[in-house]
C-alpha cells in the first residue's frame, strides 16, 4: 500500500540540520561562491561542525567513516543543504560522488590518501569533464595522457570547470590512446592541482564567481598511483558518476523554501499582488511537490537496486524546468527588487535574485534538457 510518511529518523535529521543552520549560518548567506572570502570560510567552519557530528559523511558506509544513511536520509541532507544555499560549499561534490567513486574503484592506497580529507571537509575537488568540443557529447573529449616513466603527462583543456580556482584536486578524464571506439581509452586521473603546468582561468559570467573556469594542462605529470580504475576503461566510471549527478542537487528544495517564505516576507503587500501571480505561486508549490515525488521515485528505484534511466531523465527535466519556472514567479513577486539591491536587509529579494541567475543554468548543467528528452524519447520508443 502507498506510504509517504516521512520516517521519524528523517524528520529528526531535518530538525537537527535546520537548527544547525539557524545557529551557524547568518541570514542573507548566499553560498560559498561570492566575492566575499568570508562566505567560503563560513562554509569551512560549517563543514568542520558537520564533520564533528559525523554528518558530513552521513551517506558513506561506516567502514569509510560514514553513518550508512539510507537514501531517504541522504535526500533529506541534500534538500536541507540546498534549501540553505549549500553551506557545505564545494564539498558536496567530493562527498556525493568523488568519494564514492574512489571507494568503488580506488586502490587501498588511493582510499587511504583521498577519503579522510574528503570526510573531514578539508579538500575541494573539481570535475575535469567538459571540453570546448565535448559538452553534451562527452566521449568526444581530446585531452591526452601520454605514457612516461612511472606515470603520465596530461595535455589539453577543460572548460566550465566549477570551483577549479579553489580546488586542490581534479577528477580528470583524458584519453590514453587514439580511440578505436568513442569510449575506448578514456581514463580517470586524480590530479593534484598544485602540479606545475596547470593554469586556471576564471570565466566571468552571470552565474557569479567561481562557477565557471577554463583549466589548461601543459605536460602535467600524474603518477601511475593516481589512475582510478583500469587504464583506458574509465567510461564505465564516468557513467556511474553521471548517474550520481542525475539526482544531484535537490533544486526543488530551494524552490519550495523560497515559495513558502514569500507571503510572510511580503506581509500586507502579498494581498496587493495580482491574483494571477498568486495563482502561479500556488501552482508552483504543486509543481515543486511533483518534482520531489519524481525524485523520490528515482531514490526508491535506487533503494531497490533497480536504477531506471527513464525515471532519472524525467526527474531531471521536471526539476530543471521547475527551477526556472519558480525563478520567474519569484522575480515577479519581488518586482523591481529582483534586479538586485545593495540593501543587505532585503535578504529574501537577494536570495530570489541569486536563485534566478543560477537557475538559468539548470537546463544546461550536468546534462542538458535536450539530452534528457532524448533519453526519455529513446526509452519510450524502444
Amino acid at each position: 500500500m502507498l506510504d509517504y510518511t516521512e520516517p521519524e529518523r528523517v524528520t529528526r535529521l531535518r530538525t537537527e540540520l535546520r537548527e544547525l543552520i539557524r545557529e551557524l549560518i547568518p541570514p542573507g548567506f548566499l553560498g560559498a561562491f561570492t566575492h566575499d572570502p568570508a562566505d567560503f570560510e563560513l562554509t569551512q567552519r560549517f563543514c568542520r561542525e558537520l564533520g564533528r557530528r559525523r554528518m558530513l559523511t552521513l551517506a558513506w558506509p561506516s567502514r569509510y567513516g560514514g553513518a550508512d544513511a539510507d537514501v531517504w536520509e541522504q535526500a533529506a541532507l541534500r534538500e536541507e543543504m540546498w534549501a540553505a544555499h549549500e553551506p557545505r560549499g564545494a564539498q558536496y561534490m567530493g562527498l556525493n560522488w568523488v568519494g564514492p567513486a574512489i571507494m568503488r574503484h580506488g586502490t587501498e592506497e588511493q582510499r587511504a590518501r583521498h577519503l579522510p580529507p574528503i570526510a573531514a571537509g578539508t579538500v575541494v575537488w573539481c570535475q575535469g569533464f567538459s571540453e570546448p568540443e565535448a559538452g553534451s557529447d562527452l566521449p568526444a573529449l581530446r585531452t591526452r595522457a601520454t605514457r612516461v616513466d612511472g606515470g603520465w603527462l596530461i595535455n589539453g583543456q577543460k572548460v566550465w570547470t566549477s570551483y577549479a580556482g579553489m580546488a586542490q584536486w581534479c577528477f580528470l578524464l583524458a584519453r590514453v590512446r587514439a580511440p578505436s571506439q568513442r569510449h575506448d581509452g578514456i581514463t580517470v586521473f586524480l590530479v593534484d592541482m598544485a602540479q606545475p603546468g596547470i593554469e586556471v582561468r576564471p570565466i566571468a559570467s552571470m552565474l557569479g564567481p567561481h562557477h565557471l573556469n577554463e583549466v589548461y594542462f601543459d605536460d602535467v605529470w600524474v603518477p601511475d598511483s593516481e589512475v582510478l580504475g583500469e587504464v583506458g576503461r574509465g567510461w564505465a566510471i564516468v557513467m556511474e558518476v553521471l548517474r550520481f549527478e542525475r539526482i544531484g542537487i535537490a533544486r526543488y528544495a530551494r524552490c519550495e523554501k523560497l515559495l513558502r517564505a514569500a507571503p510572510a516576507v511580503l506581509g500586507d503587500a502579498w494581498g496587493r499582488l495580482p491574483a494571477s501571480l498568486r495563482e502561479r505561486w500556488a501552482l508552483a508549490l504543486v509543481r515543486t511537490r511533483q518534482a520531489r515525488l519524481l525524485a523520490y521515485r528515482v531514490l526508491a528505484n535506487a533503494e531497490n537496486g533497480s536504477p531506471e534511466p527513464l525515471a532519472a531523465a524525467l526527474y531531471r527535466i521536471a526539476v530543471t524546468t521547475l527551477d526556472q519556472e519558480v525563478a520567474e514567479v519569484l522575480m515577479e513577486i519581488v518586482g523591481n527588487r529582483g534586479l538586485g539591491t545593495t540593501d543587505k536587509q532585503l535578504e529574501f529579494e537577494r536570495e530570489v535574485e541569486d536563485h534566478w541567475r543560477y537557475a538559468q543554468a539548470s537546463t544546461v548543467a550536468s546534462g542538458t534538457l535536450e539530452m534528457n528528452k532524448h533519453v526519455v524519447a529513446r526509452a519510450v520508443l524502444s
Partner: protein
Amino acid sequence: MNGDLSVEAVEFGAVVRQSIEAAGGVDVLRRCAADPAGRTEAGAVLDRLGLWDLRPLDGPLELEVAAVASRAAGAFAFPYPVVERLVGNGGAVALVAEHGPRVVMHLDLPLEWRGVDLRGRQYRVGPASPDPLGTPLAPFGVEALAEPEDGHEVRLAAVAITLHVWWLLGLLETALADTVRYTQERVQFGRPIARFQATGFRLADMTLAVNGLEELAKYTLWSLAHEEDRAGALVDALGLRVAALDAAETVLRGAHQLHGAMGFTNEVNVSWLSRASQSVRRLPEDRQRSLATLLDLVETAGFAELGRPGTARNLAVRPRVASGQRTVAI
C-alpha cells in the same frame, strides 16, 4: 516510503480493465454516443464486479481500489458515472459548479444524486431537462439544477475530485500509448515519424506529463487517507486537479498534433478520448476557476510539506473563518 499501489488494488484494476475491454473498450463510447440508452448496459458490466460496494472514504485500501478502478474506466473513457457512484455510498455524487449554468454528466440516469462543489459545499441536484445534451464534447452532459444546502462535505469533495483525476489519468495513459504506437507506424519522408527529433521531444513532454501526474495522484491518495486536516486534504486534491488539467493539455495537444488529420476522425480512439476528457477538464469548473479556488484554499488552509500531514497550516496567509462564501468551513 512506498510508492507502489497495493497488490489488491492493482489486481482489481486489471479485472475492471479486462471487463471493459471485453465489452468493447472505446467502442462502448462510440455505441453510447450514438445511443445514450446503451449506458445502462455499460453500467451492468461494472455492476457484476461489485464496484458499488466499495467505500473509498472508509480507508486507504478501499480508496486505492477505487482509484485504480477509476483509472481503468478512464483508460477507455467508459461512458458511465463510475466515480460518481464510487463515492456515492449507494447513490451518486456529482461535482457541481459554484455558480450556474451547471452541467453534470449522466445526470439523466436514474440514480440517487446529490451534489458537492470544489469547496465541499453540498447541493440538492436534479436535471433541468430530461435528455442529455448530445453535443460532440458532452454527449452525456445534462443541464442541471442545483440548490445549495447548509452542510459541507469537504472530505467527500476531496475524494471525488481525486478519483476524477484518476479517471483522467487512465485516459491520458491510453492517449500517450496510442500516440507512441502511431508515430512508429506512420511513415513520412521514408521513415517512421517517431525517428524525427521533434516527435521524440514531444513524446518526452507527454511522458513527463503522465508520469508526473501519476506520482502526484498516488501521493494525493495517501494524503487523503492520512491528512486529518480536512481543508489540507482538499488543497491537495485541488492541486492535483489543476496539475491534471495541465497534463491533459500537454498530452492531448501532443496526441492530436502527432496523429495529424487522422486524429480528428471517429475511426481513431484519440479523437474520442480528447472529446471525453472534456467532462473532467471543464466540469465542474475549468482550469482557471479551479486554480482560483486552489489559491483561495492555499492562502487560508496552507500547503503541507510532503509526507508530513498536519503541516499545512504553517503556510496559511489568511485566517480561516467558520463559514462563508470564500473559505472552507472546517
